[in-house]
């Protein structure tokens, strides 16, 4: 962050730095992959006990009510400490959505477990025939007494094989407008009839999965919003989701990897590479400034232009990792982390993983179409 820390912010930074130094488990530092639940969730719970797991949530639900600048400080310190990635579907998607749209019972049942790290969530949106064209989804849900009975398939479900719960879009009726007749529902992944199959990625991990539903019975009380109005439910906190997808958290982690590579002296920094590294640093500052500006305007005037942030955040991250690949020279393709001078160096694991950033959560192409039509007012 370019701006200087004010007194309170400086105190928070210093507290975060010393706490993280003591508390990030050494064996989880600078991991590239999000650690599997049995390794990663203890860290999640530790952060939760400290009260820092949900900076953007309101205090009444266990969050920090943090300002945008405080969030950036936390992102920066987490990145610098090499803190491992944690699952975010609960914190960034279904949590804020339930806070806004959920019934009292739904909030009481789910929010504490998200904040405490007692439930892992996944998002059941994409289907084999409904990716970018999400409204074409075909997983069916029939109303039968007090239940929905779900049949169909979801795919590309991040951490679907680890999740305890899924928030999903299912079709409850066929309407001429494809966005009508969709229902937003919470599904306990332990319900009989659910089969999950992990999918290996080009980054060699099992980050996402296929999920099959065969006569899966879900109580109607698990519907969020109204039956048939799920599209509106899913997009109710879109602005906030875009803001979170546009946070500098991941780009800061990428920059930290580039810094470590240069710091150990493995890289010949000629003028060309120095210029690229300067650009990488500056681009992270640009992203951070954009996040702060959009978030602070949203807080001040209630509206925001967050649509560009997701593109900016993900493409900035990919750019930094391109520079890292470039800097790694002939070692760029080495598989697995390399230990050099006591430092663990990630030459390309995050680079490989980062391919997904511009695909998930609405691909960059979808985002550009949204900007063209909604922000710029270009004709459809």
């Amino acid at each position: 962050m370019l701006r200087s820390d004010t007194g309170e912010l400086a105190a928070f930074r210093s507290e975060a730095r010393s706490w993280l130094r003591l508390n990030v488990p050494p064996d989880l530092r600078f991991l590239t992959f999000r650690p599997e639940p049995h390794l990663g969730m203890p860290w999640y719970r530790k952060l939760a006990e400290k009260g820092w797991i949900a900076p953007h949530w309101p205090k009444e639900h266990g969050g920090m009510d943090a300002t945008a600048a405080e969030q950036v400080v936390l992102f920066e310190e987490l990145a610098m400490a090499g803190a491992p990635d944690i699952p975010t579907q609960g914190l960034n998607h279904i949590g804020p959505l339930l806070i806004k749209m959920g019934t009292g019972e739904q909030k009481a049942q789910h929010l504490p477990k998200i904040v405490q790290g007692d439930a892992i969530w996944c998002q059941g949106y994409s289907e084999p025939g409904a990716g970018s064209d999400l409204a074409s989804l075909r997983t069916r849900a029939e109303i039968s007494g007090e239940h929905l009975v779900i049949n169909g398939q979801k795919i590309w479900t991040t951490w679907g094989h680890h999740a305890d719960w899924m928030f999903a879009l299912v079709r409850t009726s066929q309407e001429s407008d494809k966005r009508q007749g969709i229902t937003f529902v919470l599904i306990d992944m332990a319900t009989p009839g659910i089969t999950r199959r992990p999918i290996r990625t080009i980054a060699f991990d099992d980050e996402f999965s296929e999920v099959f539903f065969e006569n899966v019975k879900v109580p109607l009380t698990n519907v969020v919003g109204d039956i048939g109005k799920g599209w509106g439910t899913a997009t109710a906190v879109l602005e906030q989701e875009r803001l979170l997808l546009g946070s500098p958290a991941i780009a800061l982690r990428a920059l930290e990897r580039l810094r470590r590579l240069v710091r150990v002296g493995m890289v010949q920094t000629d003028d060309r590479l120095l210029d690229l590294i300067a650009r990488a640093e500056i681009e992270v500052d640009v992203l951070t400034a954009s996040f702060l500006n959009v978030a602070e305007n949203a807080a001040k005037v209630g509206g925001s232009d967050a649509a560009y942030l997701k593109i900016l955040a993900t493409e900035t991250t990919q750019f930094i990792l391109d520079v890292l690949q470039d800097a790694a020279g002939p070692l760029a393709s080495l598989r697995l982390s390399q230990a050099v001078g006591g430092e663990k160096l990630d030459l390309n694991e995050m680079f490989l993983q980062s391919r997904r950033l511009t695909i998930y959560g609405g691909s960059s192409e979808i985002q550009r179409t949204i900007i063209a039509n909604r922000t710029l007012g270009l004709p459809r």
Partner: protein
Amino acid sequence: MKEDDEVLGLIGDAARSFVRQWGGAALVRKRVSEVVDFNREEWNAVIEQGWLGVMVPEAKGGLGLSARALTVVLQQIGEALVMPPILNAMATAVLLAGLDTSYADELLSDLLSGEALILTALPDGASPTLLPALAHGWVHDALGADGLLVWDDENRQLLHLGADQMHHVKSRSTIDGGSISTVTLPDGNRRVVADGTAALQALSTARDVIGIGSAAMALGCAKQAFEITLAYMKERKQFGAPIGSFQALQHRAASLHVALASSESFLVEASHCFNGPNRSAASSAVRARSADCALQVVKEAVQLHGAIGFADEHDVGLYFRRIVALASWHGNSAAWRRHYCRSDRAEFESRKMRSSEPDIPTRGAWNLGQ
């Protein structure tokens, strides 16, 4: 210093109403096609706004506002293609106010009152093959200047060239209707404004004002070129549809929006850093980012217009040429990033390149990375 939105709103309104009278394509076209004299009336209108002292403390006759206020004015100036050397005069005022000597105060008072138009030549070296090798500084769009500050590196003195010494200035026209002037040191009558570290510190502040100010001008100008382009995309029909409905073009427009919106956010953030320890890093970084972004925008703006964009009759070319000029002011983006690398903020290489005194590169240092 962060003034409230109301003050920024007022200064923005004043700038909008100023540029309605003094900005616009017609004046630029005139400058490109014929030799134009300095317009005293226009400069007096600038003086009346008080903008030259925007960042000068009130005690010294300025408005005592922040770098944010400066950028708000300059975004409008850039948007309307206003050409007089407002930015450089603003930077010179900040430089003079920082020196705190009676001579500097006298010059500052002359500058703010309109008595003299004093500009600062930044000692950023000259390309020996094209411009006089003996030049000691450059200044852009200096038409009308009757005073110049120039750094004598050998004697480590900041000199004031008066109206009687303007023959040391050599000007060449640029594609945007402006000019580049190179300055050589006077043989006699050396008026020393300041020397040593104090002078370098003041020059470094002026350079940072020019960095963030030229970023603001470039973004204002690019934003206007983008607006013109969007309007054209909605109106121009081919294959029976507005060209703005074609996805290939929509996505390019969206990319420009991402670049512009993020650069504008960065400008706001950088201007709030101006009085802090990251001043130089922020101004250099925002200048490099804004110039790159503005170049991308205007090149696309011409392309998206098709043949009419290449025709002189269309105004989009004026913005294109202005940005090409602005993006090269006192060095290209790589040169400004090199300056960023010298700041405390930069992680790498900075140790090697950092020195104990304020960094004003000497000759040639600004042509790196080309």
